[in-house]
């Protein structure tokens, strides 16, 4: 409908409408605003992550989609239909709870089959689909177990199978991996991705773990205090954050404050920085140059002319095995973080405490932020 002429010739729109659309959704609890006039589209077959610090409204948003919270204002469309008036037990979405919420008085099979037993599905088919689910989540032979006989990882997979068995239009995952230990969590992240690709179901995950969101999701919505800060693919959010808040929330960042001069230069207390790439800032504006630690090179000698360079002394070294993080004290007493991969196998870092070093980066390494 956007381009009048073409739409008339082609009645079927080229781009599929979004599967889920939040339209100016607001949710208040008394005087507390959990979600503030938020609009968001989630596409078919997407692995979508809602990411933000605790209390940012991401779980509330997920619960409005499941039907456990009614938005104070706004509409939520599923396949173009407003689902706000639909009761939770009639919505074609299923949720995996943070606590898993497994029924302790039912067996593994009883839990997984619970959703199908609410419909008029034949017993034989229920049994078949439970068996199918047990294979899918690698729990063959566990069907008769009681829930309290399972480990945390097994419970997590029962919860997943229970939510998937009804083949929901959207699977909602509320911090699904938060209760697992770090190693298991890393494995399960890849399993979830594989599962999502295999089933083609739209997954919406809520997480406060930015690393998890980056690994797992096709697109991430970064939220803070009930508002969307940025919605984009993980790489774009990391490389092109749209604000200082997002840059600071996702990964490590050093900010250099300055004013945009003419011909793409930033005048800062550390000197003139050359920058590349587009930005909506005009010359004279107050801007920040956001730099990721791994984009910065560290050398003992002064680097050549084409690069931005500042000098400083090593004030702290954090050895992390695969890499080391250096805190460099600069001339204006500010600190810049640099991450270097530890290439040497002898466990020594190329620089030591109090070394005088040069930090340098090409013009295209940083992002110019205006807010």
């Amino acid at each position: 409908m956007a381009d009048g002429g073409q739409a008339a010739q082609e009645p079927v729109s080229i781009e599929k409408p979004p599967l889920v659309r939040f339209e100016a959704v607001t949710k208040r609890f008394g005087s507390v605003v959990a979600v503030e006039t938020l609009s968001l589209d989630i596409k078919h077959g997407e692995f979508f992550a809602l990411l933000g610090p605790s209390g940012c409204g991401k779980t509330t948003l997920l619960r409005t989609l499941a039907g456990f919270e009614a938005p104070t204002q706004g509409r939520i469309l599923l396949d173009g239909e407003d689902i706000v008036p639909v009761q939770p037990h009639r919505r074609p979405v299923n949720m995996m709870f943070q606590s898993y919420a497994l029924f302790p008085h039912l067996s593994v099979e009883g839990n997984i089959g619970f959703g199908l037993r609410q419909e008029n599905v034949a017993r034989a088919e229920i049994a078949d689909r439970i068996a199918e689910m047990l294979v899918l989540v690698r729990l063959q032979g566990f069907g008769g177990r009681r829930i309290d006989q399972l480990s945390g990882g097994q419970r997590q997979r029962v919860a997943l199978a229970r939510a998937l068995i009804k083949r929901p239009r959207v699977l909602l995952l509320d911090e699904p991996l938060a209760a697992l230990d770090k190693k298991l969590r890393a494995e399960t992240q890849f399993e979830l991705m594989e599962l999502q690709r295999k089933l083609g179901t739209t997954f919406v995950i809520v997480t406060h773990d930015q690393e998890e969101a980056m690994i797992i999701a096709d697109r991430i919505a970064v939220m803070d205090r009930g508002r969307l800060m940025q919605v984009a693919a993980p790489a774009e959010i990391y490389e092109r954050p749209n604000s200082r808040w997002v840059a600071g929330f996702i990964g490590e960042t050093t900010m250099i404050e300055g004013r945009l001069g003419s011909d793409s230069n930033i005048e800062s207390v550390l000197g003139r920085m050359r920058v590349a790439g587009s930005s909506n800032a005009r010359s004279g504006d107050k801007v920040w140059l956001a730099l990721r630690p791994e984009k910065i090179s560290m050398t003992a000698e002064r680097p050549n002319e084409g690069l931005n360079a500042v000098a400083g002394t090593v004030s702290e070294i954090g050895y992390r095995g695969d890499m080391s993080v250096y805190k460099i004290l600069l001339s204006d007493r500010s600190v810049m973080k640099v991450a270097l991969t530890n290439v040497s196998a002898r466990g020594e870092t190329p620089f030591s405490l109090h070394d005088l070093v040069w930090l340098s980066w090409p013009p295209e390494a940083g992002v110019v932020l205006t807010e």
Partner: protein
Amino acid sequence: MRRGASLFNIVSIAIGLAFLYLPISILVIYSFNASRLVTVWAGWSLIWYRELLNDTAILQAAWISLRVAALSATAATILGTLAAVALVRLGSFRGRLLFSGMVYAPLVMPEVITGLSLLLLFVAFNVDRGFWTIAIAHTTLTMCFVTVIVQSRLIGFDRSLEEAAMDLGCPPLKTFLTITLPLIAPAIAAGWMLAFTLSLDDLVIASFTTGPGATTLPIRIYSEVRLGVKPEINAVCTIMIAVVAAGTVVASLITKGGAARRQREALGAQV
């Protein structure tokens, strides 16, 4: 801090236990006395238990007591559970504080007052006193105990279990029946047992609300003792103690079992 047995602790426990159980154990021992005289020991015997089987008045009273206890405990459990659900789930409705205060009032209300007011009520409405009025009165008395027990279980209940059931397509009422009710069943059962035993040993309220042909066991015992203590009474009291003790033990086992299972679940979740 040493938590072992100091002399002071041992003595205080011994005195406490003696106060609680000395009278009862004397009663139990003398129920096995071969002598007709209550205060004279003449060796072990089951004669008074055999006598009891022939005492139709006592047996009839016991039968009435059991029926009243079963009926009133069941009614109190249903009403008490509903009250507990309302108190926990409805959030802050108008008059919530008043309602909870009113539910708990019988816990501390002197039984004489409860009994007298029920008597006045039955008289005012011209209700014939008897089996049914005792059952109603005992329901009034025991309902609040059920509410207290069920409420404590509901407060610790993970609401996401109900949300999960609804999310999987289970309508709200069915969710309550298939998920919530089985999980709070131990508390409900414990409440029933407590209501049953409370009804079984109540004398005050029953004597206010009883009528002709509805003599409960405590009323029977009390009236017989006034004419002199018969060894048979010791026997029937011993049986009552056994029933009440069994009921209390079962109730606490049920609630403990639930707590232990919850603990196991919590432990398992961390593995």
